[in-house]
């Protein structure tokens, strides 16, 4: 693995970032305008469905960047990042559920519908505070961060690495999925949360609200890209890459490998959590299937397709694979799993550096 990792392009030319950020800017400006200002009769009109789809891809791109940061640059293959994504989503979902208020089916002012349905009389303690937006947003970051910190602290300190770590993260995600499927956990069981009404007082069904959410998502994606880029370009970033290529040697040189890994892991989990929080209001539902191990593995394949260790490649891979998924599941549903499987096999065998590896060396700026 390290042999391959050593050959990965260390491409952080400003030209690529410029391209990436410009594309994001174009999306942020063009898509809402084409949706809101252009009449539906015009061929240039972007439907609400496409708007939501773009928003979804952008959230996935953010998740992919989070995975690329730890896998592509630090060599930690997490098969549980969908769990952080889902936790962020659940935190946002809890806020949105509290916003429904008396408009639910049972019209209870405090309790969400599913709790009334389960004959609960009081709000569980962990639901306190989620009626406030700032608190929910804090939890979107804090919950994944704390979980990542505890898990990472235990794992990295006792030097669980490589495949073992991957399997452990998968088990973590699996355990969370089983837990969230339980009704008495207080998270809506297998139905999860849905039927959201509004966010900060704005109707979620309105195209304007959706457009604003899209712009916010673009901003968050751009921000996380820039921060990740800053991290990997910094001195600490070089240590992180050194850990990926030769962990023991880095340790012998006197660096505290565990702390570096831990902080990158926690930061990556936070990015994933924020992505999940932006995903939920746009998609309109969150349920325990988001924790499924296969989701985490799919994220890894987005990164692999786009190109490990490039950040923009990961984002592009997420968008591409998901576009293919949307297309195939609608047009040829039975072919999709063959295609996805073939992508897994083909990319690992023939494109170890992903699509980014196909770009001519000159344009990689190095």
């Amino acid at each position: 693995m390290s042999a391959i990792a050593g050959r990965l392009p260390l491409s952080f030319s400003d030209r690529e970032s410029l391209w990436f950020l410009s594309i994001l800017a174009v999306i942020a400006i063009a898509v809402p305008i084409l949706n809101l200002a252009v009449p539906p009769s015009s061929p240039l009109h972007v439907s609400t469905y496409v708007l939501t789809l773009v928003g979804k891809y952008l959230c996935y791109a953010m998740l992919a960047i989070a995975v690329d940061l730890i896998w592509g640059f630090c060599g930690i293959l997490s098969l549980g990042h969908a769990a952080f994504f889902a936790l962020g989503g659940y935190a946002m979902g809890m806020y949105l559920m509290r916003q429904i208020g008396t408009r639910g089916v049972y019209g209870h002012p405090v309790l969400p519908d599913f709790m009334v349905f389960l004959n609960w009389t009081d709000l569980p303690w962990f639901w306190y505070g989620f009626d406030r937006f700032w608190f929910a947003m804090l939890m979107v970051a804090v919950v994944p961060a704390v979980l990542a910190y505890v898990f990472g602290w235990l794992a990295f300190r006792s030097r669980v690495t490589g495949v073992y770590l991957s399997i452990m993260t998968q088990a973590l995600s699996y355990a969370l999925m089983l837990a969230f499927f339980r009704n008495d956990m207080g998270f809506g069981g297998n139905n999860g949360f849905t039927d959201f009404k509004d966010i900060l007082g704005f109707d979620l069904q309105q195209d304007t609200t959706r457009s604003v959410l899209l712009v916010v998502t673009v901003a968050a994606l751009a921000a996380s890209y820039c921060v990740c880029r800053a991290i990997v370009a910094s001195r600490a970033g070089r240590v992180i890459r050194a850990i990926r290529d030769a962990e023991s040697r880095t340790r012998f040189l006197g660096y505290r490998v565990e702390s570096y890994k831990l902080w990158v892991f926690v930061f990556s989990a936070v990015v994933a959590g924020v992505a999940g929080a932006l995903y939920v209001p746009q998609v309109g539902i969150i349920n325990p299937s988001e924790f499924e191990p296969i989701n985490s593995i799919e994220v890894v394949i987005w990164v692999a397709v786009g190109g490990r260790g490039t950040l923009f490649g990961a984002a592009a891979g997420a968008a591409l694979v998901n576009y293919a998924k949307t297309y195939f599941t609608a047009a040829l549903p039975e072919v999709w799993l063959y295609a996805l499987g073939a992508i897994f096999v083909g990319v690992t065998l023939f494109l170890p550096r992903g699509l980014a590896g196909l770009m001519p060396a000159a344009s990689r700026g190095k």
Partner: protein
Amino acid sequence: MTLTTSGGQRLLWLLLAACLAALPASAQTPDDEFRAVLAELREASFSDKESIADKLIATSHMSARPVLTALLEDRLFVRSQDQQIFIVSSTEESRTQYELIDPVSLSRAGSAPVDELTKIGTNNRLRRFLRITIARGALANPDPDVRRAAVRELLRSLDASAIELLRQRKTEETDARVLYEIDTALALATLDDGDAAARVAAVQTLSERLSPEVRNRLAALIERNDDGSFAESDEGVRVAAAAAIETIDTARSLYSGVETLFFGLSLGSVLVLVAIGLAITFGVMGVINMAHGELMMLGAYTTYVVQTALPGYIEWSVLIAVPAAFLVAGLAGVLIERTIIRFLYGRPLETLLATFGVSLILQQLVRTVFSANNRSVITPSWMSGTLPINDALSITYNRLYIVIFSLIVFGLLLAVLKRTRLGLDIRAVSQNRAMARAMGIRSEWVDAMTFGLGAGIAGVAGVALSQLTNVGPNLGQSYIIDSFMVVVFGGVGNLWGTLIGGISLGVINKLLEPYAGAVLGKILVLVVLILFIQRRPRGLFPQTGRAAEAA
């Protein structure tokens, strides 16, 4: 030897000849006689029905008991159109048509709408009489199991005639297990009408029994009536009863502990079975095979195909499927190794992704070929049913066979690795590839064979799983995380670790279940495992020496 056989044969022929000679005379009479007696039931009063029942028994016709049982269970009907009497197979309320059975030949006789049938009624007295009559017949049956079942049936509601019948039987009975049941019933009867000393003795006899009926009866002894007086007047009997209940409860909780342990053992052996193939590919070769679950799925589908292809050999199908599944999954494994994995050695994370891709393709392949619905795999009759140990403990055969089967597979695998040339090669390559090659071992061939072996065992595990869960495209996914956990817990590269790891995980899971529920128990086990790996990153039995350095 020859002499005995021919002697036996001659006897057989003689008997047959005697039967044939008797046939023309007797073939008509008993059936007709039986039918004639039976016909009297149509218009008889309740008391007449008793004497008719006696007559039916007296014909010693083989249909007498089924007919009386049907009468007892309100399943004997008269068809309006021709006044014929029929047994009805089931009288569920939802049915509008009843399936008819001829009362003489006991063969199917078509069906009839509910409103064209009139039930032959019974009253309490008649039912009691029928019960005793049937039980008396059953108590004379040469099969001890039938006799035991009859005693147990009587034991549910004892009355004077039943007790009399049991007392009488006790003097003739030779089978210890039937005697044991009779003693239980008689002791229960003594509680109602014996004197104080006899009741204490009866309670003591009952304290060695485990059935819930006995416990409930004893518990009733120490209860108070509504007016505050004790249900049982004698102090000594109450003390004895309290002690007996305690004895029974201790024994029952002991047996339920044994049962939990056995459940754990059987779950554990399933885990061992699904993980042991992985222990080869992951543990010995260092290859993360995410398609392991799908190879098990292939094995399960092989069982289905064998049963579909050979509908006449259902009893043998599982045994035929074991080698077939080994071949199918093993060949699939060799194919995967040759086309994909061999390019990825030394890159475990890439192997993980590529094999995951293979697992998706295999799942979809199965959906395309067999449809996305679950396929039903038949359990051979010798694998279903339970083995009763006593009233508090019974063991289902399929669990028992799974335990035995996984131990056999484990033993065979161990033997292959330790005693065969292939095993020697596998161990050599896994310890030092370069040196093994220098010694002339074709390491590539060994890789393919090792992977094929692991995959084949996954297929064999799939045959076992087909008897336990639904056979569908998602069969593999539900076991893959468990099997990785077992291998990681037991320690990579150590088959004994896999055995102990799997069985202890199964037992821990089942021990937690009563307190935490099935799902929460599983979550707890996963969390404990995650914590355990932090403490011992290389599992229960870590590899030591040079192999560990290389890993």
